[in-house]
């Protein structure tokens, strides 16, 4: 197979980034191509059909479904407000009259003479899509949304929880190996880079301080479980309501952030960033991301391009035991299958770690770090 290794996560100081912003249903795009937008600006809006309320009127009036038409005061498509009479009986003595009032405001969607059921639909719910990143509208997708282009730093994390947010980047550590012990009031409204481990305690402190996001190398699964209140079964995230967004750049456990990732975050310290914790690990993989738009020019790389294959000299990270998290260089790419300790015959590669140690690992267990 052409790609027997895991393509690395994107970590780039200067990139052209395109973000598609789509409505869940067709609606109206409110910006034009070429205009500059701010991250908190509305770019498209629509209305989601309102919730429905069902009422079994025949049961309440004690009539048969086929008789329902004669008792209805409203017909399909009529507007109705909460408390307004919807159906009533017409007894000879008015005193015995039964009136059914609408429990909601909205329209009468359907009246069934088979089931006796009346379905009412509430007013539609407005939905707005924000720009999410500062940039320029590159394309308008008629009635659906826009594509926004921006330039700046682009970092993909490995896993995240929580949705989209933005704020100034704040470095709480001086080195990728370090670990923050406390977060104070200075973090209010900011995205805090906490080092090699995000603990539950740090998340609590960050929430209390009013931070909007946390970025770190690793997190213990136990802490994630306590944070979410449940054991995450399948990695589809982004909708958690936990008060802030958490992005892990390397994996589960205490892991130093990759040097390049940390260096970019340090260089962008104090700048405004947009982040999203949304992760989907299955076909059509989605990773959490950190975008820091900047005016500074550099050798730009287009995000979304395909990576080349593995080559001797490439820098990589081992992503499975026994060398999990270690970074080294490819020193050999033997073609033939080799037996590893587990007894499996697999394609392997030789890695030289920084200290000069040479080891053999399955190709499936490394990921490229693009330099």
């Amino acid at each position, binding site marked *: 197979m052409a790609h027997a290794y*895991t393509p690395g996560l994107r970590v780039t100081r200067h990139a052209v980034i395109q973000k598609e912003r789509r409505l869940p249903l067709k609606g109206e795009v409110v910006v034009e191509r070429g205009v500059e937008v701010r991250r908190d600006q509305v770019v498209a809006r629509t209305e989601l059909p309102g919730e429905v309320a069902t009422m079994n009127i025949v049961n309440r009036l004690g009539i048969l479904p086929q008789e329902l038409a004669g008792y209805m005061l409203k017909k399909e498509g009529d507007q109705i407000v909460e408390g307004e009479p919807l159906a009533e009986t017409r007894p000879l003595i008015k005193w015995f009259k039964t009136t059914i009032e609408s429990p909601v405001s909205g329209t009468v*969607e359907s009246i*069934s003479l088979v*089931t006796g059921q009346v379905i009412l639909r509430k007013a539609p719910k407005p939905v707005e899509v924000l720009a999410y990143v500062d940039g320029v509208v590159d394309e308008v997708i008629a009635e659906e949304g826009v594509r926004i282009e921006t330039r700046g730093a682009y970092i993909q994390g490995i896993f995240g929880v929580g949705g989209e947010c933005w704020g100034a980047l704040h470095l709480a550590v001086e080195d990728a190996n370090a670990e923050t012990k406390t977060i104070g009031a200075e973090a209010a409204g900011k995205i805090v880079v906490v080092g090699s481990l995000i603990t539950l305690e740090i998340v609590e402190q960050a929430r209390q301080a009013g931070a909007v996001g946390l970025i770190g190398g690793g997190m213990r699964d136990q802490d994630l479980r306590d944070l979410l209140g449940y054991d995450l079964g399948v990695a589809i995230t982004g909708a958690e309501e936990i008060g802030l967004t958490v992005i892990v750049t390397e994996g589960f456990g205490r892991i130093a952030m990759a040097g390049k990732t940390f260096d970019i975050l340090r260089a962008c310290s104090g700048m405004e960033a947009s982040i999203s914790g949304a992760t989907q690990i299955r076909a059509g993989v989605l990773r959490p991301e950190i975008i820091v738009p900047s005016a500074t020019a550099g050798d730009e790389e287009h995000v979304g391009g395909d990576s080349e294959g593995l080559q001797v000299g490439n820098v990589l990270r081992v992503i499975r035991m026994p060398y999990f998290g270690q970074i080294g260089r490819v020193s050999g790419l033997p073609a033939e299958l080799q037996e*590893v300790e587990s007894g499996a015959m697999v394609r392997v590669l030789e890695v030289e770690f920084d200290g000069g140690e040479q080891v053999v690992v*399955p190709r499936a267990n490394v990921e490229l770090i693009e330099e």
Partner: protein
Amino acid sequence: MGSDLNVVIATDCGSTTTKAILIEKKDGQYRQTFRGEAPTTVEAPFEDVTRGVLNAIQEIEELSGRKILDGERIITPAEGDVGVDIYISTSSAGGGLQMMVGGVVQAMTGESAQRCALGAGAIVMDTLAANDGRLPHEKIERIRQLRPDMLLLAGGTDGGTISHVVELAEYIAAADPKPRFGSGFMLPVIFSGNQDARKEVARVLGEKTALTVTENIRPVLEEENLGPARHVIHDLFLEHVMAQAPGYRKLMGWTGAPIMPTPGAVGEIMQTIARQQAINVVGVDIGGATTDVFSVFGEIFNRTVSANLGMSYSISNVLAEAGLDDIMRWVAFGIEEADLRDRIKNKMIRPTTIPQLLQELQVEQAIAREALRLAFVQHRQLAVGLKGVQSERTLADVFEQEATGESLIRMMKLDLLVGSGGVLSHAPRREQSCAMLIDAFQPEGITRLAVDSIFMMPHLGVLSTVDEQAATEVFERDCLIYLGTCVAPVGSGKVGEVCLQYTVDLPSGRQTGELRVGELVLLPLADDDEVEIELEPARRWDVGAGPGQALSARVCGGVVGLVLDGRGRPIQILEDDRLDQVSAWQGALNLYGE
């Protein structure tokens, strides 16, 4: 048509990999000769499934020397070393076929609808029913939220309730559901309920959905008629779902038989084998995200899919559902819980990694046992007789009866257990696959075990619809690797007591022995060997003839051999002595070497 086929090329377009196999008739026999694979190209930047198909076929061209492609065209028919007689394919790309089903009573027409959709190869996202305990607006919200590819509405026996069926149709109409793919299209809805309700259902749904009406899947309580609705599901799958996926329209033009959903094709081959050999079969396919279980008992076919039990994307969910203790009971060493949790989550976020260390392999295989076990529990819950049917029962039946509906899965009657999927097909030692199957499914009495060598059951399933003989020949010769036979007396007792005496005519000579409670014994018996075995279970232990009753049978060998399992059913694991016990079992089957 069947006899004209000499060269067949078949592909399975999975979510991540497209696998192609070449089948050739040589010396009058069909054999699978070459295979190739390439990444599936449904997503950006290619967005055309045929790209991956061509790449996989190209790999076969290079390996076989046969010219199959003329540019982007598959050459047919075959002449000498050029071309093939037919090209066929299955597909599960894009997440497979995702359906919602509905019925009036959850345990009756609701379950029938579920079995119908699952048997057609779908993932059932939810089952709506008049009595499912949800309020009307909750049902409507759910339909709107899930955005299925297709909806199957059943309900009511012919001449039975109309209003409850129409009520469900009204909820569907109120939800105004949009399909997952193709925002401009109407959602395909199949109505296969009470025929007297057709007119009303058409009135309610006719304009809001792409409605197809077919025969009632439950015309009377005593009978299920799933065939016609399953065919409609397959047709609509091609017309609506596949046709929306990138490149599929082109692919559909290439194939000589309709493209089938992958699990639907696997079900097809399972039924063919069970029918031809007149045996009861259970098959399992454990993938990264999902686990499918198939069973054919007494000609009744059932399939279930456990959407969140798998070995990579869903591995963390296996931990969440099984719990740490149930996983660790299969491992012969201790490990700190926090560390194990981090390791499992790291596999979830980097699903393509493989165990390099022996300990990691053992942990993954322990997780696989639990994923398989849980998937089989789910299967047993659905593979039941029709509920709501009155039948005469004896007192003995009452004890075998499940709380609702009678289970069709009788492990004592199971003849063949087939495993498929990476963790079973590619385990470093076949003994490990054998042990995983036995521990997870706990076969009873005499059961033959096999694994699918390179996951070609989907290809053979769709081939069986074109040429049954070719499909079964390849299945027997190249698809299955027989692991051997498991002999497991059912009962419980004190560890060390004798539970079975056996005499077996091994090729090396007659062997007589005693099997003790808590013991596993492996006897050498090769793939081609079939020998006589005499079994005398202890009192209260049963090998198939009843408690304490002797049994003679012929058993077949395999790459592992003949396994005698005295651990009882359910398998008894001693709390205090677990590590030694598990270690002894691993040693007996030589699972991990010295």
